[in-house]
């Protein structure tokens, strides 16, 4: 892995949908890291090094460096506006779509810097799925919503099976199984959120970025989504943003605490963060003294 400090700018132009680009992000070098507590050893799948993000002249992220372990759940917590969503968007280069955004630094996925010039952001996003903060189903049928990723990625599967399986895992199947041909926009807010989760997991991404996936869900649906995340973590890597401390404590293996101004204050095992954080500011934030 290169250690020289090269900064790459986002490349707004996207190259065409060439199937060979799928193999662009080869796992060249996977760094082995030992988590801070030293109890378990996992491979790092996403590693950011000195990532800075600006929106025009306002800096939204400052020098973020962290290593996200493979097949685990990493939670990001922090007050509103501290840059959690921005960081998620760095991982799958969704920031490319925002004209004002400028990303500097290096972000490795499986050892390959995704901001290298030869990386096709479309191919990248096929490996890194995303659930957005605001539910954004397409004005298409529920079925078509779930199958969208498979369709654009040209994956051929048994459609009925995938639809049912994805909706079941997203805890939505029972509510919509009789109206798969109705528009996804006719669902309630919480149902839309789960539909977006089903849509994101249908094409089997390696890394799943979830931006407050349970913000509009009742306790039962929330716990079903948490079960799903638990499940997913056996095969996939999940990065989840949440404002719910208990949720972060329940489901995540690692927790990153961002604080206002876009700095990453602490990143460690979840247990350590919640029981014995290094920083007083983190302790204040978690215990609710500071937001």
């Amino acid at each position, binding site marked *: 892995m290169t250690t020289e400090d090269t900064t790459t700018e986002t490349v707004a132009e996207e190259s065409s949908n060439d199937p060979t680009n799928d193999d662009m992000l080869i796992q060249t070098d996977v760094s082995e890291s030992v988590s801070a507590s030293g109890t378990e050893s996992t491979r790092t799948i996403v590693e950011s090094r000195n990532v800075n993000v600006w929106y025009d002249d306002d800096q939204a992220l400052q020098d973020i460096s962290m290593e996200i372990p493979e097949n685990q759940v990493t939670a990001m917590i922090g007050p509103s506006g501290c840059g959690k969503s921005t960081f998620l968007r760095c991982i799958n280069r969704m920031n490319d779509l925002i004209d004002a955004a400028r990303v500097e630094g290096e972000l490795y996925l499986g050892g390959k810097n995704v901001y290298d010039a030869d990386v096709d952001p*479309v191919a990248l*996003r096929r490996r890194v799925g995303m659930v957005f903060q605001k539910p*954004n189903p*397409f*004005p298409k049928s529920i079925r078509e919503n779930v199958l969208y990723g498979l369709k*654009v990625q040209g994956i051929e599967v048994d459609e009925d099976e995938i639809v049912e399986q994805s909706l079941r895992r997203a805890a939505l199947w029972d509510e919509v199984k009789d109206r798969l041909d109705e528009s996804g926009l006719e669902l309630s807010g919480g149902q839309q959120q789960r539909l977006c989760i089903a*849509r994101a997991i249908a094409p089997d991404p390696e890394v799943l970025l979830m931006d407050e996936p349970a913000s509009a869900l009742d306790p039962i649906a929330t716990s079903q989504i948490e079960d799903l995340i638990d499940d997913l973590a056996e095969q996939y890597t999940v990065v989840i943003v949440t404002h719910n401390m208990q949720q972060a404590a329940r489901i995540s293996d690692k927790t990153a605490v961002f604080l206002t101004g876009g700095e990453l204050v602490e990143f460690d095992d979840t247990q350590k963060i919640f029981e014995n954080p290094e920083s007083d500011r983190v302790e204040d934030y978690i215990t609710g003294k500071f937001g």
Partner: protein
Amino acid sequence: MATDTRTTVSEGFGEVSRTVGTAFRYLLLAATLVGILAVGVLFVYVGNDAIQPLTADPGWHLTFFLTLVVPTLAVGGVLRARADGSFRVGLESLGLLAVMPLFAGGVATLFLSVLPALVTFSYAVALGLVVATVVALMRSRRVGFGAKLLVVGVATVVSLLFVPGIIQSLPFVPVEWLLVALTLGTPVAAIAGAYATSSWNDRRTGRIAGAAALGGVVAAGLLGSLIGFGGTAATILAAVAGVPVALYAATALDRHPARRDGLLLPLTVVGGMLLGAFLVRTVGFAGPAAWLDWAFLTGPNSITAEDAGIYPALVGSILLMLIVALLSFPVGIGAAVYLEEYAPDSRLAQLIEVNIANLAGVPSVVYGLLGLGLLARMLDEGLPILPAAIADPLGLEPVRVGANLFGIGTVFVGGMTLSLLILPIVIISSQEAIRSVPPSQRQASYGMGATRWQTIRNVVLPKAFPGILTGTILALGRAIGETAPLLVIGAPNQFGLPQELSSRVGAMPLQIYAWATTSGTPEFYAKVIPAGVVVLLVAMLAMNSVAIVLRNRFQS
């Protein structure tokens, strides 16, 4: 007592003054009414001159009042009071019944007066083969895009070069109405099938609907030629008006049984009209001496008011609209998609956008000059594929194509000029529609790993399409009324029926202008011109109604 209560209430909440708001509201109402009243008065005036309803017997009015107006109002009132959506179904089917025959009439003029049935059929078959190739290729995933493009390109050229010739030289060809039935019925059946598939969610129903549509069209043609109505006319009426009405009725009957009673409204109207016509004929009441009659619609122009007809101008307008639609829609929508989705947000792009906005405001007579100078004069000898400046030094013959198309006042030049005129409007309204697609949906698509092209195709265009179509159809409505550019490119005032793209063409507004200037006798002013204006307005409103229906359909 009452004042006491009031003071206690106002002590509780206080009062908010709404005087300014109320005044503002009535000012706005007045502004709205001024416009609507002005247009309404114009319509009544012109309609009165063209139809002359007061010349009819009072008995005629009474008969129709009793058979048509009263039952319609009664049925409509009942349906409306039920408030279960059946009134809406009734209005929609009535509208369909009123507008689709107009479109059938437009299509019929083309088939009866301009396009020879066999030639049209042979080209339709050639195009059908190309479409079939495209569909077959789209299914297969193994062939690469480049190869597909090559195959389609070759198929297009080969098919268009050879197939029409082969078909036209066949020793036996079907009768004219059967050719028209196949040419028109096949695409109509395909669309009907696709519509039925999507609204019943069932392929089998779709196939049945398609087959029924084609069968119905052919049967109508046969019937029409047997009873002497004219096989071709019956075919076209069935394909353009019959199939959509039947599909709509079937959807209402089967898909929304609760609203099926709405279909009583059109039945009442049609039944009332037939009954009324029967009664006035048996009793012998005279109808209005309308100037706008069948003879006016289908007759050639004349210098005497009695014989003046609008048919050549009507056909000219239809031809022009066809060319304008074919040219300006793809170019305008393409430009809009490029500007919104691909063009970098640079100074140049901004400059282009500002200029398009300015072009939309350029007076139409200037476009006429452009058409005259560039198209009719410069390209009079055809498009220089190999200009003389290059050909001569090489010792070759210069190559030019389309020499007969360009020229003073031809259909083709007229259509191109009007296309240029509405192109900026088409671009701007399409851009507007594309811009209104929420960014969150684009993000959702990109986030799923879609390319830009996939996002545009699957997310942006489907969502923007109704808006794009509405804007472009309204732009077309502007083109149909334009007079100045056609005058400038030298479209003639007195003309025969345009037969091909290289014929000289007139149009309805031009014809009306000619009537008003050169043959401006009181007869013309009082009768012929109002009748022409009504035809023009009805044609324009029919086109706009499509836009209105589309907007209502897709906005909900």
